């Protein structure tokens, strides 16, 4: 296990290094720079000063090494679009907003989706089952910004019971969370249902029934525990995109999260912010994949990590 973990962590570090080089090169390939006239009116001399101040007049390899050196010491630079704070400060200010939105969304979506999936499987072909499967289909196919617009039209424009957007009060969570939760909820419900139905056909369930266990006992002690395993694979990738903020939803509901910086940083050639954001996302993704694989072992003793599995 320890050897496996070390190998995986080394792999993550290598991927991050490659990602950082690729992003750095791509970013500097974008025509235009952060201090061009269309962004800030500066005299050529002042512009040269700024470029020198941020080290942008140096050759690219030197800039890259300097950036990585500083980053390893925890200094991610100063965002050009908001020069009064640091990149770390800006992320520390806005990320909790996005993360809390994502966290509440998961808190709503996972238990509710699981419950719906269990009900749909236990009462197969009943109205609960049909309701669940049609919600799941809608939730998985209709893009979340479309759902968000429909929510605004319905609850803010037609019935006027909720504000169109904003942040700070509990009711500001309602519409963004609903729009965001639909997809993970649908995914959870659908996979819970499928995997319960699959597990119910397994031999050990028949054995449990044969030795006289009651249906609820079988459901709770045998079926559900095994049915949760495939869920891990499906839900893992949902988590990072929720925690790192969803650009569309935050822009529609005017949530002051991290989401909009993904767009503004690229538009304004804010090199330090671009690097920091993409590396942040890459780290979160890699860690979530790693944690998912480790959880597998904890949930399912049949899975062995040290063995080569391809």
């Amino acid at each position, binding site marked *: 296990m320890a050897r496996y973990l070390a190998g995986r962590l080394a*792999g993550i570090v*290598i*991927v*991050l290094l*490659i*990602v950082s080089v*690729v*992003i750095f090169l*791509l*970013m500097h*390939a*974008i*025509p235009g720079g952060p201090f061009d006239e269309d962004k800030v009116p500066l005299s050529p001399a002042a512009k040269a000063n700024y470029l020198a101040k941020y080290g942008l007049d140096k050759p690219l390899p030197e800039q890259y090494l300097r950036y990585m050196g500083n980053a390893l010491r925890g200094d991610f630079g100063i965002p050009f679009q908001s020069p009064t704070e640091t990149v770390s400060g800006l992320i520390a200010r806005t990320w909790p907003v996005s993360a809390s939105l994502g966290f509440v969304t998961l808190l709503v979506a996972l238990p509710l989706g699981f419950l719906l999936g269990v009900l749909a499987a236990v009462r197969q072909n009943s109205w609960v089952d049909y309701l669940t499967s049609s919600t799941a*289909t809608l939730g*998985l*196919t*209709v*893009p979340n*910004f*479309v759902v968000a*617009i*429909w929510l*605004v*039209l319905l609850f*803010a*424009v*037609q019935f006027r019971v909720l504000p*169109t957007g904003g942040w700070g009060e509990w009711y500001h969570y309602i519409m963004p969370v609903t729009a965001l939760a639909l997809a993970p909820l649908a995914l959870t419900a659908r996979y819970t249902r499928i995997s319960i139905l699959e597990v119910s056909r397994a031999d050990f369930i028949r054995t449990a029934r044969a030795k006289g266990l009651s249906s609820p006992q079988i459901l709770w002690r045998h079926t559900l525990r095994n049915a949760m395993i495939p869920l891990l694979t499906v839900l893992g990738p949902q988590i990072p*995109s929720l925690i790192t903020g969803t*650009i*569309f939803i935050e*822009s*529609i509901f005017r949530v002051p999260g991290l989401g909009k910086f*993904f*767009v503004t940083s*690229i*538009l304004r050639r804010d090199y330090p912010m*671009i690097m920091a*954001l*993409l590396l942040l*996302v*890459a780290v979160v*993704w*890699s860690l979530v994949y790693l944690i998912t694989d480790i959880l597998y072992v904890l949930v399912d003793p049949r899975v062995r990590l040290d063995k080569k599995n*391809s």
Partner: protein
Amino acid sequence: MSSSALSPLPIPAPAAQPRQRTLLGDAARRFARNRMALIGLFLVGLLLFIALFVDFLAPYPYDAADPVQALQFPSAQHWMGTDEVGRDVYSRILYGARISLAVGLGVTAIALLIGVPLGLAAGLLGGPVDFVIMRLVEVFTAVPALLLALLLISVFGGGLGNVILALGVVAWLDACRLLRAQLLSLRERDFVLAARTVGVSNLRIALRHLLPNALAPLIVAISIGIPVAIFAEAGLSFLGLGVNDPIPSWGKMVGNAMSYMRVYWYLGVYPTLAIALTMLGFTFLGDGLRDAFDTSAEQ
């Protein structure tokens, strides 16, 4: 199967003409029995029809601005009203079908063009080639596709062609991974061993035995990739980073509607409805194809 063991075995009818069964024939039969799949086929067919004949269907050109007629609610003249510069929303929605389809097909074509050769190389050659390609896949996986597309668009500039290019360049992962996994599992099957035993060359095994068997999952992957691409374009254009204005992208129309929606609700309703129906159509069609080709799910 559950009939009594004592009953005599049914005697096969003599010389009953065995119906020729093919993979495609079986798949078509299963597909036709699936109601959702047929709905999907209908929606996609409708989209295709609109995209092809929009010049005859649309009552107005998509870029005919008439400021006097701006922000008119739906009426007999303008079935879905007019937008903030007086363009007919109905006509723009119809023309938008062409944009969405172009994005869906174009992105998928580019994704296949990159993903299939890489997947083939990784799955067939194995070894160091496989290692390098899989690390490449990993690097692309670590950066969200939408963000990478954003970065590429700012390098190459906006516009329909560049949006398709950028989305295609980030969309090849699935085709590559899928094809590689298929080939790895097919390579170990007995029929490959049999072919090798009788002296079939490696190239011929790859082309005549492995590739046809990996085709069905690839078709499914394509049909599932199309709505993802359409969604991504709508999203980028919604943020104002995709297709530029006179071109009637549904996502762009939703984005423009954001500031008017409080009063002019129809500006938000129709483009979102168009996006949702298109996504539903392609998803139903994709799911239907997957079930139709999935021989393991035979009841």
